[in-house]
Each structure stands twice: as structure tokens, then as C-alpha cells.
């Protein structure tokens, strides 16, 4: 089974949540992980669909940034699954609800090279959404257990 965490923007917040699913992020690592993920080179076309590892429940965990092309990408996934008779289940998780104003401002600040302020806001925003992220992760795990 594959789990694709996707965002309608780039894949960075999706990666963050995917790493949370993989239990790669604990409380002490939050600041470092935010910087690692959000400072990565932003190449629009390469590694946009990014395999991050296998979870304890043996699912391949993947992050994807759709850059506003959600409908096209979702249509393509459905079509490719049909054309190639892909039987393996693919769970698609939209993470757009995690973006809050603090995360949005942080991302803008990083775009404008105000990295200190940007990371501060990002960290604040992500910590504020931790319970939502944890809930999302737990829901997926439960769904996979049922499957």
C-alpha cells in the first residue's frame, strides 16, 4: 500500500506530515526538521513526488506537491491506475487544511529571504497544528489497520 500526502502547493508541508507519519519527528527535532525540509532546493519539476520511507505498517510513504494542479494530477492517477491495472491500493491524503495564517506568513517570509522570521512563524504555525496533524496521522493508521 502507498500513502501519498499531497498539497495543492509545493510538497514541503506534505513532507513534514509524512515524516510525522513515519515517526521521524519528535518534539526536540521540530526546529531542525522544519529548517531541513523548508530550506531544501525548490525545484519545481524534480522530486516533486518524493518517496520518504516505509512506515511500521509497511506502507510506502510519499509526499507530493500539486502546485495548483490537483485535479489534473488526481485524474492522471486514476487513469494510470486503470491503464496499467495497478492493483495496489493508493491512499491520497490532502493536507491543505493544515496551512494556517502563521504557516502562510512564514512561507512568505522565507520567500522574501527573511528566514529567521519565516522559521519562527512556521514553527509557531506547525506547533499550533500539531494536534490536527497527530489526529490525521492516527486516523490514517486506524484506516490502514482496518484494511
Amino acid at each position, binding site marked *: 500500500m*502507498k500513502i501519498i500526502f499531497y498539497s495543492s502547493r509545493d510538497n514541503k508541508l506534505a513532507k513534514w506530515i509524512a515524516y510525522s507519519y513515519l515517526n521521524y519527528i519528535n518534539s526536540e527535532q521540530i526546529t531542525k526538521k522544519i529548517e531541513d525540509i523548508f530550506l531544501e532546493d525548490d525545484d*519545481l*519539476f*524534480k522530486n*516533486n*513526488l518524493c*518517496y520518504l520511507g516505509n512506515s511500521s505498517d509497511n506502507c*510506502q510513504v*510519499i509526499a*507530493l506537491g500539486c*502546485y*495548483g*494542479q490537483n*485535479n*489534473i*494530477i*488526481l*485524474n*492522471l*492517477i*486514476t*487513469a*494510470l491506475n486503470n*491503464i*496499467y491495472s*495497478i492493483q*495496489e491500493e493508493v491512499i491520497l491524503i490532502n493536507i491543505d487544511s493544515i496551512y494556517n495564517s502563521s504557516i502562510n506568513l512564514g512561507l512568505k517570509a522565507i520567500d522574501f529571504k527573511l528566514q529567521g522570521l519565516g522559521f519562527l512563524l512556521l514553527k509557531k504555525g506547525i506547533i499550533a497544528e500539531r494536534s490536527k496533524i497527530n489526529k490525521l496521522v492516527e486516523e490514517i493508521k486506524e484506516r490502514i489497520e482496518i484494511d
Partner: protein
Amino acid sequence: MKIIYYCYGGTHSSVLAAAIHTGQLVSKGVPSKKQINDLALYDKISKKELGRPFFYGADEFGNLVYVLGLGSKRELIKEFLLDYLKLFNIKTEEIILVAALPYVSSFTKIGGFLSRRLGLVSLGRPIVTYTLQKLYPEYDNLVSQVKAKLRNID
């Protein structure tokens, strides 16, 4: 092999190229307006169907030909398509993605926009068809290049 002709909407230039490729239009001589307008999927695909490849037919080598609309971020979606298949260990060497858009003129784009986006079919479609007739030799040549490549692969 799978040959995918792609453009913005997957309904004009890619359909013309796919029709030439699959022998639905004669390779020599410019087709009439009616011949182009009567092509399957021509000026039919809506915005919500972008990203969905449509099977168009098979060529003389047995390759399967598709048309696909990829919207404005075509390079991104192309990368995604190939990366997604690699996740499932599907051989991407057996896919040829052919851009059908580079030959179109501004008038083709305007006609396509009028017809598909604004729903002004009676105004937009004739413009697109007229410009594609003018561009027909370019598409004929594009398909010849693709077929030459296929012969080399075989």
C-alpha cells in the same frame, strides 16, 4: 509502446497529431475542415478532464496512441506521470510523450480558449480548425519523426 500526444487541453493539436499517427487522416494533403471537425475527441474535452489520457487508436506497429491535456504546468505533470509509474516499477521507457503544442499559433490558442473555456464553440472552433489546417504540414512532419524514432526502437 504507448505514444502520448499532449498539449494544453488534449483536444485540438494533440488530437490532430494522434489522428495522423493512427491513420485516421491521410498523411499527404491538408484535410478539410469537416475531416478535422469530425475527428473523435476534437474540441470535445473539458477542463475537468485534463490529466485523463484518452485512447485514440493503434498504429501500424501495434503501439497504443493516446491524447492528453496537461494544462499550463506541463513539465511538472510530465515529471509526475513518469515518477508515479516508477513508484510501481513500470517501465517508463515504453512511453513516448510527444508535445503537440509547440507548433500552434496564438490564433489556435485564442480559438481553443473561446471554444473550451468560454463555451463559444461556433466562434472558437472554426478559428482552431483553420489554423490547424495551416499547420497541418508541421504535424505531419512531427508524426513522421515520431514514427522514425519508433522504427529505430524496433
